[in-house]
């Protein structure tokens, strides 16, 4: 019999290392809304919402309406005055309201907004780990102990029995059973076989 060559142990490690490096690069880079080399006005406009009530929920950078154009002009003046993007955003927000900021600041109560999804995913991950531990341990337990510690798992035939007995089966009604018990028995057997398949 021909044996498959064993995978070289170095390759998976190398692969894992490479993947880690890629993820490290990812973590080291903040998420930009665009990688393009931006003009300062565009850079600021991507951090602000459109002030126009009619252009609901749009970013300032993606709107050409009158109020958006006016705000962009104001930003351009501030850019020319030598303010940084953060300073301009802070100034605009101070003048016009916190709602113009496209994303809540990562501080105070708003930190909850940023962190909660990840906290819940981490908690869910822990829950899955705990579940898997229980489930894997449950599978390793010898069958006899399972019988001793709880009721024996019923077969599908047993599970079906009460329901079949209690319910008038649509395709074979009790009256049909009275009329032709043999046919009813055969049909019941057939249905049980189908369910167990």
């Amino acid at each position, binding site marked *: 019999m021909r044996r498959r060559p064993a*995978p070289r142990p170095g390759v*998976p490690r*190398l*692969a894992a290392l*490479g*993947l880690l490096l*890629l*993820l490290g*690069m*990812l973590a080291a*880079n903040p*998420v930009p*809304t*665009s*990688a*393009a080399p931006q*003009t300062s006005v*565009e850079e600021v406009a991507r951090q602000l919402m459109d002030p126009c009530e009619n*252009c*609901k*929920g*749009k*970013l300032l950078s*993606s709107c*050409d309406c009158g109020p958006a154009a006016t705000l962009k002009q104001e930003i351009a003046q501030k850019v020319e005055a030598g303010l940084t993007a953060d300073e301009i955003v802070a100034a605009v927000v101070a003048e016009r*309201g*916190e*709602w*113009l*900021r*496209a*994303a*809540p600041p990562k501080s*105070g*109560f*708003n930190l909850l*907004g*940023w962190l*909660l999804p*990840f906290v*819940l*995913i981490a908690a*869910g*991950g822990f829950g*899955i780990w705990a*579940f*898997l531990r229980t*489930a*894997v341990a*449950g*599978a390793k337990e010898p069958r006899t102990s399972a019988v001793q510690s709880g009721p024996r*798992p019923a077969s599908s035939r047993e*599970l079906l029995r009460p*329901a079949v007995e*209690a*319910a*008038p089966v*649509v*395709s074979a*009604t009790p009256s049909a059973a009275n009329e032709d018990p043999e046919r009813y028995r055969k049909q019941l057997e057939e249905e049980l076989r189908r369910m167990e398949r």
Partner: protein
Amino acid sequence: MIQLGYYTTTAAFFIALLGIGLAIFASAKKRNDAYEAARNAVVACAFFTTIGAVAVVYAMLVGDYQLEYVWAHSDRDMPLLYKIGALWGGQAGSLLFWGFLLAVYSSIAVMRHRKDRLELMAPAIATMLVVIAFFLGTVTFASSPWDRASFIPPDGRGLNPLLQHPAMVIHPPCLYLGFVGFTLPFAFAMGALVSGRTDAEWLKKSRVWSIIAWTFLGAGNILGGRWAYVELGWGGYWAWDPVENAAFMPWLAGTAFIHSAMIQERKGMLKIWNMVLVTITFLLTIFGTFITRSGLISSVHSFAQSSIGYYFAGFLIFLMIAAFGLILMRRKELSSAQQLDSFFSRESSFLLNNLILLGGCFAVLWGTIFPMISEAAQGVRISVGPPFFNQIMIPIGLALLLLMGVGPLVPWRRSSIAGLKKLFSIPVVLALIAGALLLLLGVSHAYALVTFSICAFVLVTIVTEFARGIRARQSSSGTGVLRSLFDLFAKGQRRYGGYVIHLGVVIIFVGFAGAAFTRDGEGTLRRGESLEFHGYTLTFRELLQNKLPGVDEVSAEVMVSKGQTPLAFLYPQKNFFKKSEQLASEVAIHSTWGYDLYLVLGDYADDGGSASFKVYVNPLVRYFWFGGIVMVFGGLLVLWPMPRRGALAT
């Protein structure tokens, strides 16, 4: 005909109420006659609601502008398709449309399952009818498309200009079919809970309906993106708008349910979890409508707002209490033996997939409602826009993408570290090579690089799975590659159709990654002047004016060239709709597989001497649309009726 529509829809509402009573009676007393009558009630609802929906369309077509709804959403000059589409262009019509689709969907389901047992089906029918009755009730009593004005206007106001786009004729029906479709799995789940038949029977009944709903919802989301891209003129297709989020959340939860259902079908585990998932998915469809209608959260997509949102809130609360109450009542029957052979198994990867999908779903929900929470807690109005969602959802999306490659390779039941190493070596190495090559080619954006690498990894796993399957078929039956591929789909329709869906998602992610390289800028040009933009020359040639009935079109002719080579003439437009007195942009796009050159006309001089433009270079956008098509095609493959095994064997 039009009045008939009102009467039949009202009759359908009362028939739905009667049907609920009959279904409950049938369930409680195990009466077949009542069960049959309840089933007929669903079919009657579908019939009468169809007449109602047809009546509104008929009113649009004949121009009965005394009907306020027809006046507000159509006019004489609108093309036929938009007149039909106007049925769902406003609140009352869209609610009727929803009720109509739901009634028709439900009647098909009850007819398909007419030979099934009463115990599960009767409460399932009651559930379907409760939802139908709610929608028909809102149409009958709260938001009627049959309200008449005291006079007859000569013409209508016309459909919202933004909605006058071919995608809007298909996009809302697709979304509604998705929303409506998830009612059926939910109904079967409620049937199982009420009857106590908590085995996998309800899941088997739900399977096809879940996949239909999921496919339509996915198609609806993609089409919505297409509409936003070509109609809203901001250069992108997804802005994490609340209405987009509302359609995206049930899709995420539905995806989790479809995966998780497989574990219950195979192992009999996760019974409670599947009940919870299907309930969440359905509730999210109602929640989405609540968001759209209530006006609580502002959106560029919500064209129909009123106090009706509060009816939806009440209905949502009722459904939550009823569904979770039933789950709690049946928790003992739903508890199942928790047995898994190994930490490393397909089952575990599905659990992780569920975690990430639901985590993503929660993140989207949280971001959507956080402005309200923050305002309530701090008294300060804040916005949660694309920068928030991008930062939260990109890592989640990448984790999901990675799992999509891992899951199919891990065997069911158990695997070992050594086995996993063997399975993953080649895909991981190839993905790293792809990443390294891209790095060498100058792709230095970290997220894009990681996305492309993971896409390569998943692609390799999918191709490997197909190659393995084809090889196995060839060696067992000696057939050719194409025949083996066909047999693979015929025998493992769900599995291989699923891989095609995964392939579509990979292609979509390639499109997402392209967004990292978007360039945009703006400029004002005199006639004959040119603008240099990232290697392209845009020359403004002239302004063209076109007066049509109902709309004044102004378009700019712009020649796009690269170096000395002319590439295309683009005609971005600004259209003024006279009746509604609204201005709408029509963007012009030069699209290739590499990039989209996307041009929006801004202000212009009336004499045509100058015009301002907003220009975007959007790389790889076409992959997003193409991936969407592949994904929907995969869904159709899963649903397509294939020859049975016996037929194949012969």
